């Protein structure tokens, strides 16, 4: 299986780089590139698998003359690779749209700048209206709700 070693090593390296990118980068776009690297590592692996004899590792390690799969019209690894590339494309498309949305609101692609949803983040608050969203409601707003001017005077502490 020496001939598999190279591609697998390559996949591992790519995956490692990708994970590093995902974990260490602050810029959303760079993080996405990390994700792409990770997916491409998978692609390398899949292509490598596709290059293996039929029956995979099982056939390789099984005693001679052991089982072989039936005729398989699908070239598993390669089909999967194509799928992954497609998914990655869709993913990036969607991701960039969301990053753009973020950039429009915060004028930064830096993920560390937008953390207020995390309960343990310094900018987290449970005080109504304090996070800069008018009325604090979702995209629809209080369509036929009450006058949002009503003051949320008593916010009792719920007993923990």
């Amino acid at each position, binding site marked *: 299986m020496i001939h598999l070693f190279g591609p697998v090593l390559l996949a591992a390296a790519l995956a490692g780089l990708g994970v590093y990118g*995902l*974990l260490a980068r*602050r810029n959303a776009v760079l993080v996405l590139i990390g994700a792409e690297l990770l997916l491409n590592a998978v692609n390398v692996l899949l292509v490598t698998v596709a290059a293996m004899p039929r029956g995979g590792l099982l056939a390789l390690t099984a005693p001679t003359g052991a089982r072989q799969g039936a005729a398989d019209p699908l070239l598993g690894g390669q089909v999967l690779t194509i799928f992954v590339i497609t998914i990655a494309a869709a993913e990036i498309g969607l991701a960039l749209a969301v990053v753009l949305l973020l950039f429009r609101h915060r004028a930064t692609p830096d993920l560390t700048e*937008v*953390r207020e*949803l*995390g*309960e*343990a983040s310094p900018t987290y608050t449970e005080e109504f209206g304090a996070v800069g969203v008018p009325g604090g409601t979702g995209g629809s707003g209080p369509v036929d709700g009450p006058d949002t001017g009503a003051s949320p005077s008593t916010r009792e502490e719920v007993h*923990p």
Partner: protein
Amino acid sequence: MSSSAAVLCVLLPAAAAAFGMVVGRSRSWARDWAVAGTAGALVAAVVELVGVLRDGPVHSVRFLGTLDTGVTVLDLDLRADTLSATVAVAVALVAACVQIYSSAYLDGEGTPEAPTRYRPYAATVSMFTAAMMVVVHADDLLLLVIGWEVMGLSSYLLVGHHSERPAARAAAVKAFLVTRVGDLGVMLALVVLLTGAGTTSVSGLVELAERGELGGGTVTLAALLLLAGVAGKSAQFPLHTWLPDAMEGPSPVSALIHAATMVAAGVYLVARLLPVFLAAEVALRVAACIAAVTMLGAALAAVAQDDFKRLLAYSTISQVAYMLAGVAVATDAAGAGPGVFHLLSHATWKAMLFLIAGCLAHLVGGSTLMADYSGLRRARPWLAGLLGVGLASLAGIPPLGGFWSKEAVLSAAEHAALHGGGWTAWTVLVAGLVTSLLTGLYAGRAWAVIAGGDPDLGIARTDRDPHPDTGGHGHHLPAAMSVPLVLLAIPSVLVGLVLLDPPEVLAEVEISPVTALIGTLLSLAGIGWALNAPRRGFLDVADALPERQRAFLRDGYRLDDVQDALVVRPVRRLAARVAAADRDVVDGAVRGTVVLTRWGGVRLRRAQTGLATGYLVWVFAGAALVGLAGVVLS
């Protein structure tokens, strides 16, 4: 006839208790019910006695139905025989006298601070009577225990009747708890008998015992355990400490419960189960030793008492020890006679003595110190006369009742000692004789202090100057209080006549002339010693004792302190520790888990940094861990 009379003996006072307490509101209603109930019980008891004497005993009278233990079915039945009938007559007589007496003794409504509480009082006495009747008639020990404990409850309620007095409250609790400790033995004895003999029926047990079919271990254990209950109820050493304190109760209650009936119930139980005890020789020997120690010790303590009721209380302890001794030296199934005879005779004159004590307290406005009664002979000669009869009977002066019954016990002891009763019988005999001397001494002393002396320093002083609390009725004794004294005086004088034609239970009572003579001489010596005291310079023979020893005896050998140190305080400390441990350890662990979950929640929440890539660290770390697990497990 006797069977329905037995049931009525129980039901009439019980009904009186229920109706007097629950239904009516007025005082006279309560009094009428109380007197009628006990009087009815007296009639029923007499009828029962007549019936039993004529038709023979009835062993099973359906009463409370059955008790399905899951294995055997027990019958909670009554029985009627001469033993139960004679004791029932005595109980009903004393009870009736006490109810009549009480209606005057607890006259009026009292003050808001110290109400007389007559209604619950009369009902409780009726309840007590019913309970005692249950004990007397029960053919099943479980049924007997009902009466046994209800008596204890009544005693508790009546001792604490004047519950505004701290001493009365404390004495009530003590009375109940100390007897309850003894009753542990009764409970366990029931358990042992149910397990070992499969029955708690008196008839059944007696039959088994007589046929020798009770296992040796079972019978010995059960008898010893029962003895603990007897010691508690009959105030025998070391569980006697409650009785002197119980004198905080009204005097008629002391007469009924703490002299005539309840304290004798222990002896009655032994007499009832004598065949069982005979099968357990150890138990009888222990009983004899307890009786010997108690009769001597209590008589000695009685000598040093200044309070008349406490003196009578110690004398009761001592006399009940006589009864126990009389039963304990029995050698055959009919040997309970002397003890039971002493029980009957003691009931009459001791009840009378207590009622006299009540009259005296009534006259002087509440005090029970003997010194406050001095000069009675000159102030109230007829009351002094009755007192004299009672004390003489107590000391065993012929031909009064006490003489016959006490000598019967001593004779039985002598008979046992001479016929293989062993060293315990000798102990009993010697202790009994010495106690005769001491009994004479304290009876004579009581007479000397109360009857003698200067009325102006004692009874006449308060006669002139009524106690502010009790108003004017310190001056005369109403008929309701004096008539019962006479009613009781008659049998205390004449009870010896029973021996002319003894009923079956007393058939074996014999008086040995030698012992009787020695006993009487010793009593007379004691009396003489006490009466002679004034000639040697002091009115009270106890003044001859050094102050420290006298106080030691007066306090009942300071056994209360021992009890306090050995039981009460350790239990209190333990209780406080348990309460603290419950709060801080057991519940602390519970609170600890709450703190732990809270802490866990707070810590776990820290991972929510809001940084998306930070979350991926967990994803990959988790994947790595899971992957490792996958490889290792495959």
